[in-house]
């Protein structure tokens, strides 16, 4: 458990580069072997019957249905939006997903297609996926996505700055993007854990993003491997839990990249429940960034409903 450095809470931590550094490097180190063992142990837990049905349905509600390809077209985004509204047309009881996640230029198409459905439109921004652009460019990127109607922004941190120790620069950039969101959009901060090399760095980057005002911390862009892994998820969930304990402010975690099977999704939900707490088992505080995961969830849900194993032929190709 991380305690606030002074009785004044965490407010003054980011007042200078040195105090930010002192705080982030003063965080307890992550026992990598322990984190891997704990995550692996929680992954073996078996979820059956009613709990499984609940978990599958909740996982569907937590999905950010994502398409981030150079070949994306308005038609593809509309198809995805239709799927987001009603993931399984053969079963009207299937809940809609949380959001559709697209590149900024397709936000307008997605917002239009999702109008009235309650499904959010998330947009990646800030020179996704590398984050290598001037701050002004990144802010324009964000402003355009918001002007087009995005209500969630997935930004990437400047990993180069983070790894070379320019922590305040990373912090201030997140603050600037948060300001650009102007209360109209949720901010998810992508740490790109695959490039941070150690779990200690993941913990520091998580805290950095939370201190700077990120509403969610997100593992990856999906363009770098490894993406979401169980130990990384564990460390990030600990960060939001400890942040909530220190400040009373509940923030979320989004896992993206590499989660393709319903079985894995349910295992991650176990991790959320055991590490962060039941409080986090909602789409407001936990998300999966995924595309192919949804079909597997629908397939397993159908299996639970009909009692016969289903196949990929019965679900859309996205």
């Amino acid at each position, binding site marked *: 458990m991380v305690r606030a450095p002074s009785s004044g809470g965490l407010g003054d931590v980011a007042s200078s580069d040195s105090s930010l550094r002192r705080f982030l490097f003063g965080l307890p180190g992550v026992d990598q072997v322990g984190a891997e063992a704990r995550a692996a142990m929680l992954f073996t837990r078996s979820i059956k019957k009613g709990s499984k049905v609940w978990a599958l349905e909740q996982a569907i509600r937590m999905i950010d249905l994502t398409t981030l390809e150079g070949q994306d077209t308005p038609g593809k985004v509309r198809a995805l939006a239709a799927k987001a509204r009603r993931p399984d047309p053969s079963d009207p009881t299937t809940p809609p997903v949380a959001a559709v996640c697209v590149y900024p230029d397709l936000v307008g198409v997605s917002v239009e297609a999702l109008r009235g459905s309650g499904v959010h439109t998330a947009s990646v921004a800030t020179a996704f996926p590398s984050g290598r652009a001037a701050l002004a460019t990144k802010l324009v990127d964000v402003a355009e996505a918001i002007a087009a109607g995005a209500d969630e922004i997935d930004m990437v941190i400047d990993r180069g700055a983070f790894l070379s120790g320019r922590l305040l620069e990373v912090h201030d950039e997140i603050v600037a993007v948060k300001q650009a969101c102007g209360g109209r959009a949720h901010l998810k901060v992508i740490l790109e854990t695959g490039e941070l090399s150690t779990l200690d760095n993941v913990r520091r980057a998580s805290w950095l993003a939370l201190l700077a005002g990120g509403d969610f911390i997100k593992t990856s862009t999906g363009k770098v491997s490894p993406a979401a892994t169980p130990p990384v998820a564990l460390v990030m969930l600990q960060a939001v839990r400890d942040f909530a304990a220190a400040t009373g402010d509940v923030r979320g975690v989004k896992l993206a990249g590499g989660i393709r099977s319903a079985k894995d999704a349910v295992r991650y939900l176990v991790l959320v429940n055991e590490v962060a707490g039941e409080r986090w088992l909602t789409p407001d505080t936990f998300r999966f960034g995924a595309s192919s995961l949804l079909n597997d969830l629908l397939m397993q849900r159908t299996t639970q409903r009909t*009692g*016969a*194993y*289903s*196949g*990929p*032929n*019965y679900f859309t190709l996205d």
Partner: protein
Amino acid sequence: MTGSDERLAVLKTYKLYIGGKFPRSESGRSYAVSDAKGRFLTNAAQASRKDARDAVVAARKAFPGWTAATAYNRGQVLYRVAEVLEGRRAQFAEEVAAGEGLSAKRADAVVTQGIDRWVWYAGWADKLAQVLGGANAVAGPYFNFSVPEPTGVVAVLAPQRSSLLGLISVVAPVIVGGSTAVVVTAQDRPLPAVSLAEVLATSDLPGGVVNVLTGRTAELAPWLAGHMDVDAIDLCGAPDDIHADLERAAADNVKRVVRAPLGGEPDWTAEPGLHRMSSYLETKTVWHPMGV
């Protein structure tokens, strides 16, 4: 050191064969296998419905690659299987003799017939298209071709009595045409099938093209018959009392059903004919304008 020169027995663990790997059953279960006289032989893995599910996923994954292989290549791979089978005759003869209660000489003859049957099917790989397909006569400036195409994932309930020759006679025709198989072995005589899996794993056959499940046929069959991602099912070894149920379940996704032979298991030594191969092939007919 005790100084004892008695050797520690190295016993074989009979496992499943799924996606090119040899896992134990997901359920952790195993069951005792006896010889024809009821004496204990060994324990074999008892597959659960989830193993069947995993096997179907593996077979589906292997299907595109196996189908895309040229017929000639498939024939070569199957022939390679026969070569490796030949090198392990003694082991198969022993297992067949124990399981089916045959004399050593008789068991050896069964193994020979099994290998010959496999070679016979291997030879068909690049001849099926000529025999079952063809260029159709049309009254116009077109070509019109009929081409046999593999059905997909086939669930095979292997014959209960003939544990090697029968098994080969139902598995080879599935894969020769380019389909992939999930095989439920003879319940009480599973050992030759497990050894066959070891042969398949070491003879160029891509993992997942054949998956072998040992266990209770009556437990696994309904899940495979009802599985929406299985395209055909061979009911050869299904218990008599559940045939109708299996066919009903198979109708849900319009599986091709190959019914069990009337009057029990046939004489597997007889010339098999094309029936089993053509059962897992679908004819695609295409028009093709000439010239262009």
